[in-house]
């Protein structure tokens, strides 16, 4: 099986989607001739032409609004927003329309589209390029939100997202775009939305992470294992819907949970996960659910980004804390 980076796997996923379904189109800034600023769409413009891989003007509301209109009229758009920090001009179109069109039209126009968004920090990107505001989208009923953390999942989730009847925000953790390679089957396959990935089995504490936090949590789990603490590590993959069964099941087993995310803490997705666990596994909990997150400050410029982001030390401390509560 070929080994690829996350970026290559996403590219594969898009390529397969374009090949398999003539109604799929890709649109966004620099996605065509340039192959995307991260090369995610590399080669697609050459293969599928200017009508299916479209460089648009610089206007996010235009891109997402157009995508909704295309979906209404029978296409399957994959829109790219260049960085999560630049999705906000298109926020209204997502929140007010993409998310609600199925309900508003009683199933007639479900706005089946995918919005791909590189997100998160850790790559010393310029200012305002490192937002991680996934919880904003998770709060909006009608949307689905997914994040791959392995090349395998990247392709499979993308194929699933494109075929999904509902609008999907597909987040791409930039930090691990090229951090490692993984096996990616050279065929059509789907990783179903709504299912978490059990990365590692353990008994003492549940670790929940997604995107670029997964390899970090894995590393933490390995270190902790040496100290005799065994972690049940869950890669959420699907931020909405949540795989409650896996999450709750794990916490019932371990009695303890640590959530790791890059976004600021207050009202981040960690809060929802805590509340979910509290609701469904209250009697099993041996310690408060603990969040290791970005601090509640604007995502800093890169000189301080390592101080802002969760790190091994903070994860270990949190695990210590819940173990010794």
């Amino acid at each position, binding site marked *: 099986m070929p080994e690829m980076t996350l970026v290559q796997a996403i590219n594969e996923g898009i390529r397969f989607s374009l090949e398999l379904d003539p109604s799929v189109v890709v649109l966004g800034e620099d996605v065509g001739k340039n192959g995307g600023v991260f090369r995610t769409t590399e080669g697609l413009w050459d293969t599928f032409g200017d009508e299916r891989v479209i460089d648009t003007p610089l206007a996010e*509301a*235009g891109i997402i609004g157009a995508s909704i209109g295309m979906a209404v*009229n029978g296409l399957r758009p994959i829109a790219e927003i260049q960085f999560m920090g630049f999705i906000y001009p298109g926020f209204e179109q997502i929140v007010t*329309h993409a998310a609600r069109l199925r309900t508003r039209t009683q199933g007639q126009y479900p706005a089946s589209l995918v919005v791909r968004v590189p997100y998160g920090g850790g790559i010393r990107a310029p200012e305002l390029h490192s937002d991680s505001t996934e919880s904003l989208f998770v709060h909006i009923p009608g949307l689905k939100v997914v994040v791959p953390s392995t090349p395998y999942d990247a392709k499979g989730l993308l194929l699933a997202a494109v075929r999904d009847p509902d609008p999907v925000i597909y987040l791409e953790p930039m930090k691990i775009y090229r951090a490692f390679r993984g096996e990616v089957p050279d065929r059509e396959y789907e990783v179903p939305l709504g299912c978490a990935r059990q990365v590692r089995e353990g008994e003492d504490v549940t670790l929940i992470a997604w995107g670029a936090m997964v390899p970090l949590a894995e590393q933490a789990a390995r270190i902790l294992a040496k100290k005799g603490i065994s972690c049940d590590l869950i890669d959420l993959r699907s931020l909405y819907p*949540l795989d409650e069964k896996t999450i709750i099941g794990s916490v019932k087993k371990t009695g303890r949970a640590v959530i790791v995310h890059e976004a600021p803490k207050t009202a981040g997705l960690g809060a929802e996960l805590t509340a979910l666990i509290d609701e469904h596994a209250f009697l099993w909990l041996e310690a408060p659910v603990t969040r290791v997150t970005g601090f509640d400050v604007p995502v800093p410029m890169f000189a301080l980004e390592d101080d802002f982001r969760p790190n091994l030390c903070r994860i270990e401390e949190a695990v210590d804390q819940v173990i010794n509560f």
Partner: protein
Amino acid sequence: MVDLKQMERVGIQLVRPDGHLTETGRDVWERMPEDRKRAFYQWMVQVRLFDRRSVTLQRQGRIGTYAPMEGQEAAQVGSALALGKEDWIFPSYREHGVAMVAGMPLDRILLYWMGRVEGNRAPEGVRVLPPYVPIATQIPQAMGAAWAAKMKREPSVAVAYFGDGATSEGDFHEACNFAGVFRLPVVFFCQNNHYAISVPFSRQSAVPTVAERASAYAIRGIQVDGNDVLAVYTAMEEAVRRGKNGEGATLIEAVTYRRGAHTTADDATRYREDSEVREWTEEKDPIARYERLLMEEGLLTPDRARKWEQRCRETVEAAVKEAEAAPAPPPSHLFAHVYKDLPPELVRQRRQLTGGDETHA
């Protein structure tokens, strides 16, 4: 065909406020089939009666806040009659006239104003999207639908209906710009009724017309007398033809006036002069003008007018009855169309709402 190019920027008028045809108007008129001439009238009357009835229904508490469109009948009917079944309509909240002409059943329109989401859904084959309440958001979507048609090589246009106020939003700009760059078969149909709620157009725009904004996008811009149904129809027909011919987008500004308040929750006397309202009502009414023309042309008699009005009233009444009799969906209908398949948390929430009664809505 009428050479609209010449008339750009001056505002096209084919029927004068006194009901007389202009010279070009006469040309257009001669070539127009009689049933179309009648249709203009019939729809305008029907739309107005529906609108008035709706205002009353709101006063009686039988529907919620309502956005009246009286005064804009020519703009809506004229433009909608120029569209085919293959064309897409992305309306604002004031386009009841457009929706009706396009095939939206009257009772559904009423249901919408009763706060019933079922009123949003068009019958099969009627390409009318639900009313777009957040201003200007429909414009990029219409552009996208037009783009899809172009890619699929389908001869169809998409029309975004919006008001003068909407032209201040970024969405208007982005949509027009895409339409220009990609030469899309979209029609931007702006009913300039002079106000965005209380804000006059002069505070909305430093240029005196909406139409001239088209030049910033290299798309065609036309200003028409929006109370002249013939002019509106002709402009729209041409825009549709151009769109389907691959000649790109058109921005039509139909200059008109809403006689009533912004919505039934608004008090228009706070920001409009009586004299202004009177002028538009008494001198520039879209129906009176056209009625006069039809009578003069021998296509209408007072008697037939009365009969038609009667028939419209019946149609409207029947729709009111139907809407009011439409069985209310159960509370669980909240969950019916959020996702194709409900995630577990939502299944639980629905159960919570229904108290365990799991029958589908």
